[in-house]
């Protein structure tokens, strides 16, 4: 399979403009800014079938088309580089190895919505990546790809790299915008949506790093070429960050629709140390875990993973072998979400910590009869009732762990100890 997103990363000095240009970089941008109207660009991306790679999988071209064209306010383009989802490290690779592809994609998205200011909001912990991005922006500015009257086209755009302060919630697009505005990283109540009332109340598009990095290839090879890859509804390729008990962890680029078990066993070399597979979280820590029996028919595309009862999410594949205590794993995730809940709305603020405390108690051998029903009920009370998707992100995995490994939880409660790791 031809690599689209990882096409440059193995080339030495791939992060420099010289190497990126020598491999055809910024030629698609030149084509766009000189010869393609914003309307046609949006149509082209719609035709490619590209969907947001941040987790929700919303069609990118359609997102752009929601931005009002006649708004008297400035418009903003934001690249979401706040990658923080547990088990997800694909954007970091692109940021460090192929920053110019991200910048080129960001420029195209800005052009599509006719924004003259684009931000790359990068997670605070990614200092190395932020430095690389800043250098890349400088290089691209000096080369005339960013700035005023770009390549004689009359189009102006600035690109600003902004470091977050390291909160998971700031990856949620409206929290990201609050943070970028200089406020507390709190999600905003919707409606209104960012397309009309985003950054500083102005029309704004927020796209994930991986989404934007796919754009130069799509323009270079055409929407049809991209749409020819993948399944009927999940087009193109997607990055998967594989971690946990797996022989060959790392970032993989796969055609959408690739068989999950084949990927784990052949591409990733199977479960490490020859142990048996116990479960996989397919889409980052906020997605429901799947048992091996549920994985057999699953392909790596949005629809297939959803049919199996989970979501493709960010493509953060966390593999757990049969020595994993699922109670501890569930508690670990619950602790993460309790720590990262922003505290704005009641169900998430109180519910995440409540669930964490119960999971912790069970893990410590102090579980009580009724604890599991209580967690399921609390997670159900959070689901769908919060300001932002964080509530669902915390509730879904909690419920899934209990539903899918119920005997193990019950054993843990009855024995008042872990029976998995003792074996």
């Amino acid at each position, binding site marked *: 399979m031809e690599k689209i997103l990882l096409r440059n990363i193995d080339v030495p000095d791939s992060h420099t403009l010289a190497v990126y240009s020598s491999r055809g970089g910024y030629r698609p941008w030149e084509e766009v800014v000189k010869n393609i109207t914003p309307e046609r660009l949006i149509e082209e991306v719609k035709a490619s079938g590209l969907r947001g790679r941040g987790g929700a999988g919303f069609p990118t071209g359609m997102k752009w088309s929601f931005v009002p064209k006649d708004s008297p306010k400035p418009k903003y383009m934001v690249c979401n580089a706040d990658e923080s989802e547990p088990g997800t490290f694909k954007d970091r690779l692109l940021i460090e190895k192929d920053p110019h592809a991200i910048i080129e994609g960001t420029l195209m998205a800005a052009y599509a919505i006719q924004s003259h200011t684009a931000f790359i909001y990068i997670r605070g912990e990614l200092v190395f990546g932020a430095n690389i991005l800043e250098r890349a922006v400088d290089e691209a500015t000096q080369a005339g790809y960013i700035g005023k009257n770009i390549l004689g086209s009359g189009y102006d755009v600035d690109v600003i790299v902004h470091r977050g302060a390291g*909160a998971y919630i700031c990856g949620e697009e409206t929290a990201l915008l609050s943070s970028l505005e200089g406020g*507390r990283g709190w999600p905003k*109540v919707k*409606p209104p949506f960012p397309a009309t009332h985003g950054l500083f109340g102005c029309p704004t598009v927020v796209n994930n790093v991986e989404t934007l990095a796919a754009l130069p290839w799509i323009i270079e090879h055409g929407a049809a070429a991209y749409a020819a890859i993948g399944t009927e509804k999940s087009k193109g390729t997607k990055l998967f960050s594989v971690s946990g008990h797996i022989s060959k962890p790392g970032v993989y680029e796969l055609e959408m629709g690739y068989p999950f078990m084949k990927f784990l066993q052949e591409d990733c070399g199977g479960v490490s140390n020859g142990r048996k597979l116990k479960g996989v979280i397919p889409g980052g820590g906020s997605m429901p875990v799947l048992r091996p029996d549920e994985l057999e028919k699953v392909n790596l595309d949005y629809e297939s993973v959803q049919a199996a009862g989970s979501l493709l999410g960010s493509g953060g594949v966390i593999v757990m072998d049969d020595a994993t205590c699922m109670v501890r794993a569930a508690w670990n995730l619950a602790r993460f979400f*309790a*720590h*990262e*809940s*922003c*505290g*704005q*709305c*009641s*169900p998430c*603020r*109180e*519910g*995440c*910590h*409540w669930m964490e*405390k*119960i999971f912790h*108690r069970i893990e410590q051998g102090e579980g*009580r009869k009724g604890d599991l029903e*209580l967690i399921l*009920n609390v997670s159900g*009370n959070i689901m*769908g*009732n*919060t*300001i932002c998707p964080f509530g669902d992100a915390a509730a879904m995995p909690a419920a899934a762990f209990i539903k899918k490994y119920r005997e193990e939880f019950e054993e843990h409660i009855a024995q008042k100890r872990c029976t998995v790791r003792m074996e």
Partner: protein
Amino acid sequence: MDPIKLTIDGKEVATTKGKNLIEVAAEIGIDIPHYCYHPKLSIAGNCRMCLVEIERMPKLQIACNTPVGEGMSVLTQSPKVLAIRKAVMEFLLVNHPVDCPICDQAGECWLQDYYMQHDLQGSRFQERKEHDRKREVFGPNVVFDGERCIKCTRCVRFFQEITRTNELAVVNRGDHSTIALFPDTVLDNPLSGNVVDICPVGALTDRDFRFKVRVWYLQKTPSICPGCSTGCNVSVETYQNRIARFKPRINEAVNSHWLCDEGRYCFHDLTGGERLNTPMIRQEGGLVPTTWDKALGAVLNGLRGAMPLAGILSGRNTNEEAFLFAKLMKRLSPDCALEVFYQERELSEVQKILMSPDRSPNFRGAREMGVSSNGGFEPLMRKLCESHFSGAYVVGEDLLGMDNDKDWIRQALQKLSFLVVQDIRMTETAQLAHVVLPSTHFGEKEGTYTNRNGRVQKLNVATIAPEGAMQDHEIFIRLLDAAGERVSYSTPAEIFDALANEVPAYRGLTYTAIGEQGIQSGDGQDSHDR
């Protein structure tokens, strides 16, 4: 304002576009419970108590952030909605100390009320509760209890959006989220007390009021704040015949939902201290108690023999009292000088949101009743100091309580051949009087004030005047009677209807039409702009 129709719980509602579901449901008497939503603040959407079911929408929606739409069908009592209310109540109480027995908010706490209406079940939370700061003093009037706080952010938004002073913010994350002052900040802006009113729980309480009275013992009387001529609508809340606190009453034509701190606590100065309970008359050696008949007789004789005459009325006297006072004084001396006590101070931008520069709530009304010789209060005081007058009748103000020119005024008052002081306390001014008449304060009387914009509003009796004191209007009627002018009215209502016939700006107004929201007189122009 496009008219639209929707149904809520099967009832069809006709309303206009632009309103949200909480407002429209309230129009037909359906109460959608909520904490963070406040009609005067931006939508926060964080408490999740107002989740309702809307046809064709898969998830429950918060009513506060849902504008009504044509044909919308809303359920506020469906099983899903009732279940989520219980769930939200349970979440809000997870880390709440449930210390109602020692909480000042008990009895007017939205957590208590909604628990009774929507929850009524035990919590399933059996873990250790998170702790937060207790009784942290935010400022002179407001104290914070972090454990009772539900993080609705009403207080934060109030200081961001109404006063724009931004003292408070939410800090920390998750269940450690809490409200805090910015470093080196004190919550001392002139409207700070309002956050106690809008705090739906016991997190922000009033340092002046707390622990004084359980709120269910309070008697609430709708009235008008006597602090200045803005005329904020208040509920005077009393316990055992004492005013315990003021709370603002909503009046969009005057104060909206708010009350300034100066007004909120002004009743202490205006009602405190030892009350006069008998008329007094000057004899050799000083003031001695006397009977009302003797005192009023002495007033009439004394004033008649002390021309030229000056009359100074407090700005806290009602229109009815002012009307009678003017009548009385002009009967005694047609060219007497009459003025309403008036002093101005500079106001800051935040003060100007609600406060007027004066401290005379009925300044405009009293002048309109004829307590005005077109010179103004200051020129009258100057004339007084220049010994222009021989007699004076001072009602409800301690002229020696003024900061400036105290010695001048004392000398001038001492030189008068006859001085009557009508007040509730033995003030410094009263000590110089020849006759002292014990009267009543704003909380003990019925009547009307006219605010600076000409809005006529009603005071009601909140506390009973002490034995021995007499209502101001009654004193004036008895003096008028003794002076030979028999009037046909005696109650404030009757006096108002009589003055409405005589005073042009009040023509057509009736006492009963004033109601609890007031009524507009005259041209509605701000008297402070003239």
